[in-house]
C-alpha cells in the first residue's frame, strides 16, 4: 500500500471511529470562539421596569373607537386601498423574460447548426466561434441572474432564535426539555434513548427554532424527568439580533438536581453572515 493510500485509510478509520450524532438530533453551526456570550440561567424570572405606552390612545380610547365605528357606517370609507407592488416581482418578470430570450437565441443557433450539418470552410469555423462566444455571454448573464436571485432569497435572514441542548446531566435523568417564550408559547422535546446517547457523545438537540422579536426577552427552560421536576425551571435573558439567527445553547454537562437549575450553562452566538448551512459541528462545539 502506498503511503498516501495508508494515510487516507487511517483518516477514514479515524472519522468513522468518531461517535456519529443520531439522525434525529439536529446539528447547530459551530460558533466562532470570539462571538460566544455566556448567559446566566436564573431561578426567578427577572423583573423589568414597566414603561407606559400609547398614553394618548389609552386616555382617549372611547373617542377614537367611536370615530372608527362612525367611519364603518359610511360605505364610501370602506374601500380598500391598493397595496404597493413589491418591485422585486417586476424584477423577477424581467429576469424571466431575459431567460426566455436567451433560451430562444440558443435554440435558433442550435437549429441552424443542425441544418448546416458539416463545415466546409474557415468562415464556418469563425461562425462557430462567434456562436460559442454568444453562448458564453448568455451563460454569464444566467449566472448573474442566479446570483441576484440567491442574494435576494438566501440573503434575507429574518430575526430567528434557535435553542439547542447539549451534554448529559451529572445526575438525574432528563426525559424532556421545554422552552417557553415570553408570549407563553411552549415547545417540548421528549428525549429518546437514541437522542440521550447522542447528547452523551457530543450531539445537540434542537428544541426550538422560529421567528423571534429583536428585543431583550426572557426564555424559560424547563427540564423534566427523574430528579428534575422540582428544580428544573430556569430563566435566560437574551436579545436576538435583528435579521440574524441567534443560537441559545443550554449545556447540561455540569447539571445536577442537587445543584439546581443554576448548574446549567448557557451561551448565545449569532450565525455569521455567509456561514450558511455549511458550518459543520464538531465534538467541542455542537
Amino acid at each position, binding site marked *: 500500500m502506498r503511503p498516501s493510500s495508508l494515510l487516507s485509510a487511517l483518516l477514514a478509520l479515524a472519522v468513522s471511529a468518531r461517535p456519529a450524532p443520531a439522525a434525529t438530533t439536529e446539528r447547530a453551526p459551530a460558533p466562532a470562539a470570539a462571538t460566544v456570550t455566556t448567559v446566566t440561567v436564573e431561578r426567578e424570572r427577572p423583573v423589568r421596569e*414597566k*414603561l*407606559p*405606552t*400609547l*398614553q*394618548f*390612545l*389609552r386616555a382617549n*380610547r372611547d373617542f*377614537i*373607537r367611536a*370615530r*372608527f365605528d362612525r*367611519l364603518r357606517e*359610511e360605505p364610501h*370609507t370602506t*374601500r380598500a*386601498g391598493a397595496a*404597493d407592488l413589491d418591485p422585486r416581482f417586476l424584477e423577477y418578470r424581467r429576469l424571466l423574460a431575459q431567460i426566455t430570450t436567451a433560451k430562444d437565441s440558443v435554440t435558433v443557433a442550435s437549429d441552424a447548426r443542425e441544418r448546416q450539418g458539416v463545415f466546409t470552410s474557415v468562415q464556418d469555423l469563425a461562425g462557430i466561434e462567434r456562436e460559442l462566444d454568444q453562448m458564453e455571454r448568455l451563460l454569464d448573464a444566467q449566472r448573474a441572474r442566479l446570483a441576484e436571485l440567491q442574494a435576494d432569497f438566501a440573503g434575507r435572514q*429574518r*430575526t430567528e432564535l434557535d435553542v439547542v441542548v447539549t451534554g448529559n446531566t451529572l445526575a438525574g435523568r432528563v426525559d424532556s426539555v421545554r422552552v417557553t417564550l415570553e408570549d407563553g408559547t411552549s415547545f417540548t422535546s421528549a428525549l429518546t434513548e437514541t437522542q440521550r446517547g447522542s447528547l452523551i457523545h457530543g450531539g445537540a438537540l434542537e428544541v426550538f427554532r422560529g*421567528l*423571534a*422579536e*429583536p*428585543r*431583550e*426577552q426572557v426564555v424559560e427552560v424547563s427540564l423534566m424527568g427523574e430528579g428534575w421536576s422540582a428544580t428544573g425551571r430556569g430563566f435566560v435573558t437574551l*436579545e436576538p439580533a*435583528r*435579521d440574524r439567527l441567534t443560537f441559545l445553547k443550554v449545556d447540561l454537562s455540569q447539571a445536577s438536581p442537587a445543584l439546581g437549575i443554576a448548574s446549567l450553562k448557557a451561551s448565545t452566538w449569532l450565525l455569521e453572515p455567509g456561514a450558511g448551512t455549511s458550518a459543520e459541528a464538531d465534538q467541542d462545539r455542537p
Partner: protein
Amino acid sequence: MDDRAPRSPFPTRILAVALALSCAAGRVAAKDATPFAARGGLELASAAAQSWSGDAVLVYVENDEGLNNDAAGTSPRWSYLFYSASQDRARVWSVRGGRIVVAENLDMRFDAPPIAAGWLDSGAAIAAAERSAGDEIRKLRGAHLETMLLMRGAFSEGDPDATTWTLVYRAPGAPALFVVVSAADGKVQRTWRG
C-alpha cells in the same frame, strides 16, 4: 501570628467606587437616550411585527416620552402599534435608544385601517403645522407640543381615508389645541380646541 486578612495590593475600594460610578453612568445614559424622529424606530418595530405575525400592518404611532423643543419632531421613545387581521389583535413595540424596550399586546380592540406608506416624518409634520397654524399656536401662551400621533381615518374630516398626523399643543389653564396635518402632503386639514 498576624491573623489579619492579607492586604490586597489592588485598591478594591477604588474599584468598587469606579464600578458603582460606571453603573450609575450607564443608567444615566440609558435614561438619556438620543431623541429621534418617528421614522427612526420604524424598521426595528416592523421587524418585530413581522416576527409576531406575517400580516401585521402599522396602524398607529405615538410619542411615549416628551417631544424635544427643537421643532424636529424628536422624542426619546416612540410606540408603533401593529394590527394583525389573522390574529385579530394589536401589538405595540416601544423603541428607545435603538432598542425595543416594551412589547405588549394592546388590551383593547383596535382594528384600525393601515397607515398609508410614504408618510411624512414627525419633523416635517411640525414644520407644516407651524407654517399653516403658527399664529393659532402662538396665541396659546406657554403652549408646548405634548403629543404627536399618526393614524388613518379617525381625525380627518374631509377624507376619512387619509393618514394624518395629529399634534396636540397644551398650555396651562387653556384647552388643548389640536392640529391635524395630512401625512401625505403636509397640508393642515383642521384645527380645534378641546
